């Protein structure tokens, strides 16, 4: 009996991950709220993680290198969220807004 991985070709995973990544990019560019931008970044990270897992299963079955990387991505994403939310909170405290367009002091 074929496993699910064998029945679904690799390209499907890659396509799904690509769509996920593109949605993330669109979100980063189009949102103005810092929290939403952060969520979009999470989408991009997860797209990458999906890619890692897919490649690991299809090409590197015996070893777990891709899976290990996926775990790393999740850990870094968690750390990043902690850090970024902290910054956003401080900005909000300071300026009563989370709109990145209004946080533009650091310029020429």
């Amino acid at each position, binding site marked *: 009996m074929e496993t699910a991985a064998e029945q679904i070709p690799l390209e499907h995973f890659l396509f799904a991950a690509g769509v996920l990544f593109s949605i993330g990019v669109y979100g980063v560019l189009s949102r*103005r709220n810092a929290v939403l931008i952060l969520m979009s970044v999470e989408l991009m990270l997860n797209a990458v993680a999906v890619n890692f897992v897919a490649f690991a299963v299809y090409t590197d079955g015996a070893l777990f290198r891709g899976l290990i990387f996926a775990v790393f991505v999740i850990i870094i994403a968690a750390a990043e969220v902690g850090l970024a939310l902290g910054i956003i909170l401080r900005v909000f405290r300071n300026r009563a807004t989370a709109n990145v367009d209004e946080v*533009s002091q650091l*310029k020429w």
Partner: protein
Amino acid sequence: MVDMEQAWLIPAIPAVAFVVLAFLNGYLPRRGDFIAIGAIAAAFILFFAVAIDLLDQLPGELEHNTSGFDWLTINGIQLLGQTNDFVLRIGFRVDQLTLVMLAVVTFVGLMVQVYSLGYMKGEVRYGWYYAVLSLFLASMLTLVLADNFLLLYIVWEGVGICSFLLIGHYFERRSAAEAAKKAFVTTRLGDVALLIGIILLWREAGTFDMSEIFHMAEAGEFDQGYLTMATLFLFGGAAGKSAQFPFHVWLPDAMEGPTPVSALIHAATMVVAGVYLVARVMPLFEASYDGALYVVLAVGLITTFISAFMGLVMTDIKRVVAYSTLNSLGLMMVALGFGEAGVGPAMLYLFSHAFFKALLFLACGSVIHATEKQEVTALGGLGRKMPITSATFAVGALAMAGLVPLSGFFAKDEILVAAEHFSYAPFILILATLPITAMYMVRVYLLTFSGEPKDAHAHEHAHESPPLMSWPLVLLAGLAAVAGFVVFEPIGKAIGLESGFLGFVESVLVEEVHAFEFNWPIAIVSSLLVGGGLGAGVMIWGGEAAPATAAAARFPAVHRLLLNKFYVDAFYQWAINNVVLGFAKVIAFFDRAVINDTGVNGSGEVTNGLGFLLKFQQTGKLPNYALAMILGVAVLAIVGFSVKG
């Protein structure tokens, strides 16, 4: 026993004295003057040892007369299409020419240093003065001993820097500082020519060694035009050091130094270096086109003439004597212009000139020391107060004028004999300068030592100088009186010179030397002219000097022309102000407008402006940065794939 292979000791001892004095003079008793005098005295004694060794080997080829080592060798230097090895050799060589120079330099150096004990007593920088004096002598002694052009050039510059330091000894006085600068810059012009000449010779010959280059020149291995050019460059250096026209302007100004220094510069070091150089490279002149020697002759004649006339009107006694030096140096150059035949007379003149010129300057120094005046308008009537100075100055002046039988007489007569063999034009021109020389020497003597004192205070103050100063005068006067007799064969033999002084010097150049013959007709003619000049001088400047004042009033234009030194100095000043400084203004404008405003400030402003335009990218808005980042990644990805594909 010291022989010619140890001749390097002669300059080495004063050089060591310089090092000791320069650093330690403050810690030594009497500021270490005894070290300097001991060093030059040792050099003087060593000279005798070297002389005995050399004279033992004559007549015949000299052996074991070189010493030294190669200090630095660089192989395969390319210059204008020629590849040569560069060897910096500290090498010494003794021959007849060198011996004459050693005698002059060590003896006059010793006399000057002893005299300075009295003259410089209590002056500023006393120890430093003796240190530089030692270095000056060491440089000059190395110069005459050098067996290669490179070493000669190095010490040539050493002589230049020492003269700069000594002329500017009282550098707090502006005129002294300016005179030192003038001497340095003027001689430097010649030095550049000398360096070019040496490099030209080296390029073609592949060596700096003098005797090798001379052999090549005699064997015709140089292109004659090329050799003539190189030789004339060498002469440029000699003319600068020997204060020949048009470089003569520095010498009279060099009077700003202490008087013993003037004596040293004029008699033994510095100015005779040029004469020595021309005599030394005579084989190159002989191998060049005739024109090279004509240049020497012409330059010498011009120098002799203009200086003789200028000597007539100067009022500073040291300046009059300085112009007489120019006169003598011109004569020596004229003699060298006759080629090989003139080397003997030129060296004889140099030899006797060293004594009477050192004497004249030291006597001047004695007068200045006693009265603290040096303008003849403030002197006069010193004969009774300063008998030794007066008598010795008279000997020097008469020797300079060329009176029988003082040394100057034989020296200039031998030049006249050589001139007569050569051609009549220079012969007559030299004869014409004789009475003028005699006149201005009489003038300066009369105005200083006889007549009524013009400055009563200075006259009352005057006294004979201490023995330390008067003894060198007496010694030098004795030698100035008798030094000329060395031309005679019996006297020459008695002091070890086969066939007299002239033959001794000539044997450096040729195998067969001429026997010395006294030329009666020339002696009589020249003596008459000198006697006439002396008589005219006494008539014009004796007593109230009324004829002189009348003549000056009668021909004010001539008087002014002479007082202004033929406007040569003024012309140089004009040229410096207008040509040199004008050119400097152009360069300065280029520097300001092109280098500074355009190059330095311009590039800064371009960067600044670009930065101003580009800074507006930094909007501070996060989405802009994110977009730029993503676009950048996209562009890189497209470029990466298309390059790979």
